[in-house]
């Protein structure tokens, strides 16, 4: 029931949290940084890892050198962004307005799940009321609802027939 949905959403949350900043293929920090940046040459839309320009080659070299010197990922990225601007980042920054880029889809899904849960619970309790009403009507033998009851019974039997 609700437990099932909770379990699924928990899986989704756990997966998304574990993925935060962790889409690396290689354990190499330099490759990790390179995969998150783009070619700095104006007008280029290529990822840094495959770009051919001298600027891109320099940037790759810079990243590898600084990683060897022991710089942290954040420091390297910040330096490059300071030098070239946000356009070298292959994705929006995880701060400020750009954080909305990351959070909105999950907010929509979790919000939607909440709405769905509320709707389903309301439908179920309405259904219980409806069934109680129908039973009362059936006991009185009312025409229209009696017809509906036969329809429902027929459909149920058809399904059981599969």
């Amino acid at each position, binding site marked *: *029931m*609700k437990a*099932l*949905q909770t379990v*699924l959403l928990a*899986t*989704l949350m756990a*997966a*998304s949290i*574990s*993925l*935060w*900043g*962790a*889409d*690396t*293929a*290689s354990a190499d920090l330099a490759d990790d940084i390179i*995969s*998150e940046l*783009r070619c700095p040459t104006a007008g280029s*839309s290529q*990822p840094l890892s*495959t770009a051919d320009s001298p600027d891109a080659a320099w940037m790759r070299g810079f990243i590898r050198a600084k990683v060897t010197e022991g710089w942290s990922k954040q420091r390297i990225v910040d330096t490059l962004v300071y030098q070239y601007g*946000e*356009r070298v*980042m*292959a*994705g*929006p*920054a995880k701060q400020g*307005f*750009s954080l909305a*880029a*990351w959070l*909105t*889809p*999950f907010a*929509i*899904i979790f919000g*939607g*799940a909440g709405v*769905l849960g509320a709707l*389903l*619970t309301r*439908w*179920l309790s*309405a*259904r219980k009321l*409806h069934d109680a009403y129908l039973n009362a009507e059936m006991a009185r033998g009312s025409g*229209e609802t009696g*017809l*509906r009851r036969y*329809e429902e019974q*027929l*459909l149920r039997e*058809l*399904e059981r027939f*599969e």
Partner: protein
Amino acid sequence: MAEIGRISLVVAFVVTAYLTVASALGIARRQADFLASARNGVYAATALVTLAWGTLIYAFATHDFSLKAVTNYNSRATELAYSLSGAYASQEGSLLMWAWGVALMLLIVTLQNRGKHKSLMPWVTAVMGFVATFFLSLLTFFSDPFAKMAVIPPDGQGLNPLLQNTGMLIHPPALYLGYVAFTVPFAFALAALITGQLGDEWIQSTRRWTIFAWAMLGIGNILGAQWAYVELGWGGYWGWDPVENSSFMPWLTGTAFLHSAMIQRRRGMLKVWNLALIIITFTLTIFGTFLTRSDILSSVHTFGDTNVGPMFVAMMVLILAVSAALIWDRLPLLGGENELDSLVSRESSFLLNNLLLVGAAFAILWGTMFPVISEAVRGVKVTVNAPFFNQVVGPILLAIVVLMGICPIIGWRRASLDNLARNFRIPLAVAVLAGIAAVLFNARQPYAIIAFAACGFVVGTVALEFFRGACAQGRVLGRNPILALPNLVWGNKPRYGGYLVHLGIIVLAIGVVGSQGFQTQMEVTLSPGQETTIGSYRLVYTGLTSSQEGQKDVMSAAVTVYEGDQLIGKMTPSKEFYKGFDNPNTEVSIRSTPVEDLYLILNSWNDQAASFKFVINPLISWIWAGGYLLLLGAVVAFWPDARERRREAARIAVERPVTEALQTAEV
């Protein structure tokens, strides 16, 4: 010759505009001769658009350089197959292909439904006619495929070498067929809204159209990925490019629609949701073609300078406004069928499936449009590339995979938790085994292990369904369960076709996780005779050779490949230089096995020293295999099924007189 094409295009525009109005008037005023005239209009319009399309193709085949399109996308040296595909390489030509697709679908729908659905069909015709008119109006007034050159050149520029690949012969037509085919369920949905016939009629008549559209869109996407892998030469297959995204989104919402339509057919629930979903899916198809033809986002796919962008925006706004108004107006007729029995039921798991699929589509839309949003709000254009989509959409898709394992086990209406737990045991065991296997094969990141375990879970579920069904069928037929399998599948094609599709998706997912998570690459410069190792391969570079083949100069590097001590063979990555095109074409060399692909790229050279990029893509063939399985499953699900027909006929026979009686009673 081109004049015939242009004239038939313009006349087709007039005819489709006429048939749209005639059809609507005919049903609104109950005048049969207008309806008959509209039907004739369908035949005429289809013939005319086919003539226009045929003329364009003929112009390409005969290298008629008096047309701009032919000059830009064809040359005397272009082979016939690529001459023909040049017809849809240009923006105008592809628009004409779309218009032709809509006309063709309208014709088929008209022929299919002669004498059936008498109250819905005229509106279906009107809506599809309107869509066709829209595209034909663009072709008539803004984007003429038959535009002439001021001076006829002796030869054309030729087709971009990137497009001269067999994948390109099928990928665009498949994708367009998918896009266009979604017009049919959309038209039926609007017709149902307009006529107030909001029962199962519209959704039942479009089940197979939806499967067809969904399958074509799926295959189109996979073929596109395969083309990128083989032709673009960067070692990957999906870049989350805006245009790739825009063909993925309607596929996701289309998948949601396929599932929630099942709920409406069985339980009469979710009428408003289904209408909204197909309208959103259709709007996304228009959005897709809008992105390709406008300038708002840059992409390898965009057609560059076109002026039709605003028209598409207007069309989308119109569709959404009219649909919303109709749904709002018909809301009283759409409520009331509350058939939910329990929160633990297939119905609620389908609802979760819908939430996740639409959520994934939203995430992709949001990421694709965020650069525009950010610029509007902050004045700073940020880029949103693959890392964003992998991190945001990845987990959502993973959750969908997990759900794919759960849904088939939960029964309709009400499932007991005990039953569920019992049914989970075997699939969970398979999941654990899959996770362990992944670790044994050097998977270390939690994401990859969870993903493989999830895939194992779904395989366990599907296998269990087939096993149980085969045993039951075997008992009925008095046969071995394995021999009973064909009967099982053929006896309930929608269901088992669906399971095959699920299996295909899982195979594809395994390929994606393997190739995304475990790719190895190296960049190295070698002199002749030097060797290097990557993975279990030893690569010996022996030298460069230059040659000429037809219209291209080729520089290829010879690399001998050993696996351990065994000689595998010679691979020749190369670069091709086509006359008239500045950038060389990278022809990669790929050796595929079910386990992994060895992918060699020649980057550059200096004298005889060559710079390479070597890549190992584990499990990537599973992606293409999954695609074929998906197609097979779709074909099975699509195939006419006598049992399904009987069941639906019984349901409609019961429903219609009751609905009509109730409606008269209410009035």
